[in-house]
C-alpha cells in the first residue's frame, strides 16, 4: 500500500485551523462547564432535599444520555430558538459546557467532601466563619485533589469535541472527513487527525502532572500519573 503524504501536506493548513477550533471549543466549553459545575455541585450539597432535586437530576440526565444525542438536541432543537440558522460551533460549545458541567459538579463535590471533617472542626474552633473555613482551609486543599480529575475531564472533552463533526462544526475531525471525501482515501486523513489529537492530549497530560506536582505540598506528594484514559462512568457514545 502506498501512503500519499501529499494529501496530508495539502490539508495540513485546514487540519491546523480545525485543531484551533477544537482547542477553542473544548477550552470555552470547559470554562463555562466549570462555572455551571460549581453552582450545581453546591446545589447538590444543599440540605433541603427539594431544592437539591433539580441539581441531582441535571447531573443524572447529562451523565445518563449520550453526548452525541445531546449535541443533536441542542443543535437542531434548542439552538434554533435563539439563533437562526444555528451556528454549529456555538452549538458544540454549549453542548460541551452543559455536559462537562455535570462531571465537573461531581469533581467539585467529591473534592470538598474528601477533606477530613477534623479540618473544619479545627477551623471553626478557632472562630472562623463558614466562608473563612471554606476560603482558607477547605477549598485550597480540595482544589489540589481536584486537579487530576479536572485534567482528565478536559482531556476527555478535547477528544469528545470531535463529535462536533456530525453537525459540521469546523473542528479537527470535521476537516479529516472533508479530506476523506475529497480524495476518497481514508488512511492518510484519519491517521493525521488521530496523531494531532494524540499530541494535544499528550501535552495536556504533561501539563496536568506538572500542575499536580506544583500544587502537591507536603500532605500529598504522590507520583503524578499520566492519564489519557477515559475515566467517565455512564455516558457512552
Amino acid at each position, binding site marked *: 500500500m502506498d501512503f500519499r503524504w501529499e494529501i496530508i501536506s495539502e490539508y495540513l493548513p485546514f487540519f491546523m485551523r480545525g485543531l484551533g477550533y477544537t482547542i477553542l471549543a473544548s477550552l470555552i466549553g470547559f470554562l463555562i462547564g466549570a462555572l455551571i459545575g460549581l453552582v450545581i455541585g453546591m446545589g447538590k450539597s444543599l440540605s433541603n432535599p427539594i431544592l437539591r432535586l433539580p441539581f441531582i437530576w441535571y447531573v443524572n440526565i447529562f451523565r445518563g444520555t449520550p453526548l452525541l444525542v445531546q449535541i443533536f438536541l441542542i443543535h437542531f432543537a434548542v439552538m434554533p430558538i435563539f439563533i437562526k440558522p444555528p451556528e454549529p460551533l456555538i452549538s458544540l460549545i454549549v453542548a460541551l459546557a452543559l455536559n462537562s458541567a455535570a462531571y465537573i459538579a461531581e469533581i467539585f463535590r467529591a473534592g470538598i467532601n474528601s477533606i*477530613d471533617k477534623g*479540618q473544619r472542626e479545627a477551623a*471553626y474552633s478557632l472562630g472562623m*466563619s463558614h466562608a473563612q473555613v471554606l476560603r482558607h482551609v477547605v477549598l485550597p486543599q480540595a482544589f489540589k485533589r481536584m486537579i487530576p480529575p479536572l485534567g482528565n475531564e478536559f482531556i476527555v472533552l478535547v477528544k469528545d469535541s470531535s463529535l462536533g463533526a456530525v453537525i459540521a462544526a469546523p473542528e479537527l475531525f470535521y476537516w479529516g472527513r472533508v479530506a476523506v471525501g475529497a480524495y476518497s482515501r481514508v488512511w492518510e486523513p484519519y491517521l493525521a487527525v488521530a496523531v494531532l489529537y494524540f499530541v494535544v492530549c499528550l501535552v495536556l497530560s504533561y501539563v496536568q502532572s506538572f500542575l499536580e506536582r506544583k500544587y502537591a505540598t507536603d500532605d500529598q506528594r504522590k507520583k503524578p500519573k499520566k492519564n489519557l484514559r477515559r475515566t467517565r462512568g455512564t455516558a457512552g457514545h
Partner: protein
Amino acid sequence: MISVKNLKKTFGELEVLRDINVEIKEKEVVVVIGPSGSGKSTFIRCLNRIEDITDGHVYIEGTDISNKKVNINKVRTDVGMVFQQFNLFPHKTVLENIMLSPMVVRKWKKKDAEEKALALLRKVGLEDKAGVYPESLSGGQKQRVAIARALCMEPKVMLFDEPTSALDPEMVGEVLEVMKQLAQEGMTMIVVTHEMGFAREVGDRVLFMDGGYIVEEAKPDDIFSNPKEERTKAFLSKVL
C-alpha cells in the same frame, strides 16, 4: 466562667449526654475521665458548640451558647480547642497554621501575628520548625503546634480532648509538659485524658463520667485514693 445546666445530647435515638451539670471557675484545671463511649468527647465538644446542643444550657462567661442567635464564632475565639488527631492544616506551614486565625478572624496585622506566633513556638520549643509543613513533624511536635495555634487566639479557656492518646509513648511527656506549664500560668483548662498522673499532679478537680452522666467529681487525691461511687471504683481499678 463556664456553667453547664441540664445539658443533654442525643444522636438520633442514642442518648449520649443525659443531664450534665457543672461549674468551672477561672484558672481551674478540670480533668474528665471515664470509660470509652461515656460521652467525654461529646461533652467537651458541646462547650464550643462544635457539637450541636440538644437541650439544656452552656454559659461561657455568661453567654448562653445553646441559644442559636448567639454569635458562636465570636464565643469560639475565646475558647481554644486541641484535638486528639491534631488537625493541623496540611497546606500551611507551622507558622502559617498559627497565624491564620489571628489574621482572618481577629484582623491582626501580619507582623503582629508573626511575632506572637514565633513567641508561642519558642514557648512550646519549636521555633526552628516555623517554616516546615506539618507532615514533617512528629506526633508530639504536631500537638505542640496545635496548642500554640489555639493559644495564638489568646483564649480564656482551653479544651483538650485526649491530646496525647494518638501519640507514641515517648512523646506523651513533651505535650503534657507544655500543658502543665500552661496550667501554672493560670489558664482555665478542661482536659479529657487517660493520663492519671497528669490528673493527679495538675488537676484541681476530676470529673468521672459514665453513661452520659457525671457520676462523681472530687479533688484528684480524693477520687483516686477514696472513690465514693461503685462505678468510679470499678473504672479506677482497671486503669490505675
